[in-house]
């Protein structure tokens, strides 16, 4: 044992430089796993899985309809029998245009309006800016409490008046954080007013997109109560939610996200493992003589293996601990760079257990990936010292190798399953990784083979550079695999972003309106048409809309006690804006059934959009019953329609045949295509609202800008992870260069002896790594293009365009990066005197 320890220490002392790379591979991998996991853990904590606070209640009943007296009675009967309900309130929300009352202030902003009544909130805290608790008195007599950001957006201050709908409100206070937090996608900042002000300002009268909620606080587990409510409200449009269920859902979601991110980290760690494997392999190869001598002196194979195993363990542990340090540094970087994008309560520490887990993972990966190469030590025979056997390589594959190979694979699978927290995901991860690797590796093999075919170039440097790529023990394909994978991830993300951004690009989608007006009254149509024509120079398109919801499908109500149906409630239970017209729009096509002809119909007919038809499980000929302002209209599904959303001015899910809805209460929508400048757009919105306070305006350009910001943030995050994959690829490259360096030094010494000048040797170096980078870039760009095509076409359903400039740039950058790294890491070779090198061989 003493022998093993001593030798280990001596070995580390003599070869730590070479093993430094091993150390870095593990550190980077562990760092990625721990950083990603910590990030999502801390985020979860900051956002709070406290669904009770998010819901601001224990039970929530919600509907886009006014609660009918019959429904209220049902609710009351259940609640009245319950002994656990402590408090109750109601809220009402919608999205609205808000503008300052001061006519000289031209701002206008879309906000999320919420009408509340005391006690508010039922659960949690509400603190206004300045630190005082929220007091309901602030809202009395047309008071408003608004999000701080809106003060800026609207260029107003506390005490100013703002106009909402037909009413005028005084800003009494602002707040930074509202009860329930500000998660999720929102069109605008929050404004609180009194619930009854919704009526006095004409909001409930003029707009249809309103959600009403009744909230309860309970003193005990509300599970049973929720079930009773759901049973009682069966057949109505009311959704019942409880914080417990939401808590579970959210917890599940966060855990899943955490595990997926951890798998991404594991991917980087596995790449680190490949680096380790590489180092271990070359290390054993180089230590053949030492091992032979040790065996010659009487050390047994197991003892020798123990020496190197101990070395790996030491380096693996130190590397892992260093990696945890790296993760902490990464978290601090996130804090420094992204603190604005993070929730206020975000913390930036790595927890002890996560760090420990990461370290264990690092050590296990070190062991798994070095086991096979270390086993080679057993096959080294001391007799090689007697012959000059420098060049022979070890190729024997005996059964122990197979067994250990399988054990390593099983170990890796275990780690993947552990990190993913699921058997299925773990297996898929490993299989996906294996398939990707095999494909990339094959591509690398084909490319290098092709290169070899054209081996005879007229230039000496090029010929020699290509030869160098085939040097015995060359790492060409491994490097291509690792760097190619990095380029692949980064370029795929870039390409998908390019396509997504294009999708939201106005200049390419001429039919996308720039402004969208809704809730226009019949009496206002002509006047608005004139205003818009005057300001935009184009005739707006004006469409009648009727609010309707689906009551029955083929005579049956939705069964919301069924979990699957309940999950779709948001999509099928909501209120729709439907229209009626004679003709199919340009961007529409009928996929089944027939579009109606001019002749009179015997029953009402409706055309349904493809995806909705699938959701409702209807085909042409089925019947759907709509609830339109309390009246039930049953329509026959005449056809199923496909909508080309890329080329759309309006998108109606339900279109009725003319002759049915003309008498129903209706409002109108108008669209403007012309793209006005920001100031003109704002002024037009202002003026429209001055004259027609009931009209709602969607500034599509504004919304798209918000979406694009979201995409950009997402892409930034993924690119960040992608660049880590790239970094591990580069690390593997550096490691491989270090490992084959002695060979390069040797070859350069010979070439110098034969009269090669430094310029020629440098040219070989540049061409060699330039070529390597070029191939890696080609592989990355090729597969990135394929992936972005597949995802765009089959997953996101958006138009895909080949991006030659981006891809060429990607290839060039990869080639340059590899060349720069390769040349930098080998440059000193050019300056060595040959004699010393040759005499030591």
């Amino acid at each position, binding site marked *: 044992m003493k022998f093993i320890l001593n030798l280990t220490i001596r070995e580390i002392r003599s070869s730590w430089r070479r093993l430094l790379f091993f150390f870095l591979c593990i550190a980077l991998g562990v760092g990625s796993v721990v950083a990603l996991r910590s990030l999502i853990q801390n985020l979860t904590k900051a956002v709070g899985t406290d669904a009770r606070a998010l819901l601001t209640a224990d039970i929530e009943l919600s509907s886009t309809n006014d609660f009918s007296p019959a429904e209220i009675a049902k609710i009351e009967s259940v609640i009245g029998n319950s002994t656990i309900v402590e408090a109750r309130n109601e809220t009402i929300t919608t999205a609205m245009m808000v503008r300052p009352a001061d006519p000289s202030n031209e701002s206008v902003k879309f906000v999320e309006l919420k009408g509340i009544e005391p006690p508010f909130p039922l659960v949690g805290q509400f603190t206004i800016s300045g630190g005082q608790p929220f007091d309901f008195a602030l809202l009395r007599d047309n008071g408003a409490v608004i999000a701080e950001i809106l003060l800026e957006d609207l260029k107003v201050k506390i005490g100013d008046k703002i106009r909402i709908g037909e009413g005028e409100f005084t800003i009494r206070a602002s707040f930074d954080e509202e009860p329930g937090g500000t998660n999720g996608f929102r069109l605008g900042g929050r404004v609180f007013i009194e619930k009854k002000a919704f009526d006095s300002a004409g909001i409930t009268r003029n707009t249809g997109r309103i959600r009403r909620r009744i909230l309860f606080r309970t003193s005990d587990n509300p599970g049973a109560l929720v079930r009773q409510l759901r049973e009682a409200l069966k057949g109505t449009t009311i959704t019942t939610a409880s914080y417990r269920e939401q808590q579970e859902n959210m917890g599940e979601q966060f855990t899943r996200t955490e595990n997926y991110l951890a798998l991404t980290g594991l991917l980087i760690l596995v790449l680190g493992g490949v680096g380790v494997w590489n180092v271990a392999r070359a290390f054993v190869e180089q230590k053949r003589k030492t091992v032979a001598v040790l065996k010659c002196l009487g050390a047994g194979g197991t003892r020798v293996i123990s020496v190197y195993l101990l070395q790996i363990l030491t380096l693996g542990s130190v590397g892992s601990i260093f990696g945890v340090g790296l993760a902490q540094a990464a978290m601090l970087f996130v804090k420094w760079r992204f603190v604005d994008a993070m929730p206020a309560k975000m913390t930036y520490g790595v927890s002890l257990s996560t760090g420990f887990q990461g370290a264990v993972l690092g050590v296990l990966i070190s062991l798994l990936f070095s086991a096979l190469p270390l086993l080679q030590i057993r096959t080294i025979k001391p007799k090689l010292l007697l012959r*000059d056997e420098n*060049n022979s390589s070890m190729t024997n594959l005996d059964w122990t190798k197979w067994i250990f190979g399988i054990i390593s694979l099983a170990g890796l699978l275990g780690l993947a399953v552990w990190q993913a927290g699921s058997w299925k995901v773990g297996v898929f991860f490993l299989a996906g990784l294996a398939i990707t690797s095999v494909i990339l590796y094959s591509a690398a093999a084909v490319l290098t083979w092709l290169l070899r075919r054209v081996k005879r170039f007229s230039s000496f440097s090029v010929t020699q550079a290509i*030869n160098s790529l085939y040097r015995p023990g060359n790492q060409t394909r491994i490097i291509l695999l690792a760097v190619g994978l990095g380029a692949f991830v980064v370029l795929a993300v870039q390409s998908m972003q390019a396509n997504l951004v294009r999708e939201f690009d106005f200049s390419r989608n001429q039919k996308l309106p720039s402004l969208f007006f809704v809730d226009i009254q019949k009496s206002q149509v002509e006047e608005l048409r004139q205003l818009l024509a005057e300001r935009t120079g184009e005739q707006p398109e004006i469409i009648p809309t009727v609010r309707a919801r689906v009551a029955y499908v083929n005579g049956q109500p939705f069964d919301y006690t069924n979990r699957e149906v309940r999950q779709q409630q948001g999509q099928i239970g909501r209120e729709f804006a439907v229209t009626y017209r004679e003709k199919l729009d340009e961007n529409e096509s009928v996929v089944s059934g027939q579009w109606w002809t001019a002749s009179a119909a015997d029953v009402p007919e409706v055309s349904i959009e493809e995806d909705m038809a699938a959701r409702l499980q209807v085909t042409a000929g089925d019947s759907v019953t709509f609830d339109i302002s309390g009246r039930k209209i049953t329509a026959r599904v005449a056809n199923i329609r496909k909508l080309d959303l890329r080329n759309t001015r309006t998108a109606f899910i339900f279109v009725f045949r003319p002759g049915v809805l003309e008498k129903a209460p209706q409002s109108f929508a108008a669209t403007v295509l012309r793209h006005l400048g920001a100031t003109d757009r704002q002024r037009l919105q202002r003026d429209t609202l001055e004259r027609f306070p009931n009209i709602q305006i969607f500034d599509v350009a504004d919304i798209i800008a918000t979406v694009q910001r979201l995409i950009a943030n997402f892409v930034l995050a993924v690119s960040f992870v992608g660049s880590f994959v790239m970094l591990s690829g580069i690390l593997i490259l550096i490691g491989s260069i270090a490992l084959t360096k002695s060979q390069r030094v040797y070859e350069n*010494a010979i070439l*110098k002896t034969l009269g*090669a*000048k*430094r310029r020629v040797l440098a040219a070989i170096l540049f061409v060699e790594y330039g070529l390597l980078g070029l191939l890696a870039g080609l592989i990355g760009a090729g597969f990135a293009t394929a992936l972005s095509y597949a995802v765009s076409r089959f997953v996101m359903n958006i138009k895909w365009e080949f991006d030659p400039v981006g891809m060429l740039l990607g290839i060039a950058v990869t080639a340059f990066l590899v060349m720069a790294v390769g040349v930098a890491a080998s440059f000193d070779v050019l300056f060595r005197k040959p*004699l*010393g090198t040759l005499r030591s061989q």
Partner: protein
Amino acid sequence: MIQLNNVTKTVRSGSDDLTILDDVSLSIPDGQFVSITGASGSGKSTLLGLIAGLDEPSSGTIIVDGDEVTAQTDDKLAQIRSEKIGFVFQSFHLIPSLTAYENILIPMEILGLRDARGRATQLLADVDLTNRGHHYPPELSGGEQQRVAIARAFANSPKYLLADEPTGNLDSKNGQHIFELMTELHRQSKVTLILVTHDHAIAARAQRQVILKDGRVISDTLNNEIGDQISG
């Protein structure tokens, strides 16, 4: 003509300065076949390496064919080697990633010779390896590797051929073969041949015999005029 004037080579080993060559002066006229002998560690390889410009002396000058190799950039040295010098090592030093044929091709490609391929084929035939040209060094025996190395050394038609114990790693039969090959090539091409060897029988067949001891020339004799000291 190769001229060494007071060449000294010292290296640092640990904290001490170790003198490998100590004030060596030699003059070798063109076309001569000189053997250098001496105990292991006497500085033979170092001397040969300095002549080829593979390293630089600590003091003194070396002039090869009118060029002072001690005051040159690495690139100029490489050019001199490329044009004038062939080198054969004890341990062959073939490039392992190239075939025998390609190894022979290299010096001519560096020099930019026209009919490199034809000459490489001819050289392979000269060393009796015509059908082993496509083999990689590890697939060849020691003797075969050394024959490739000799063909490679002759590829640029050098004026000076330096050989450092070319038979040292070979058995006597193969060693004899290599030696015959080199003397034959020397006779045909009128090359200046400096041969470092352990083998006194071989050394005795050279025109001139230089003996090193502890980095100094202790004997320098012409074999047909035994006892005639040229320098000391």
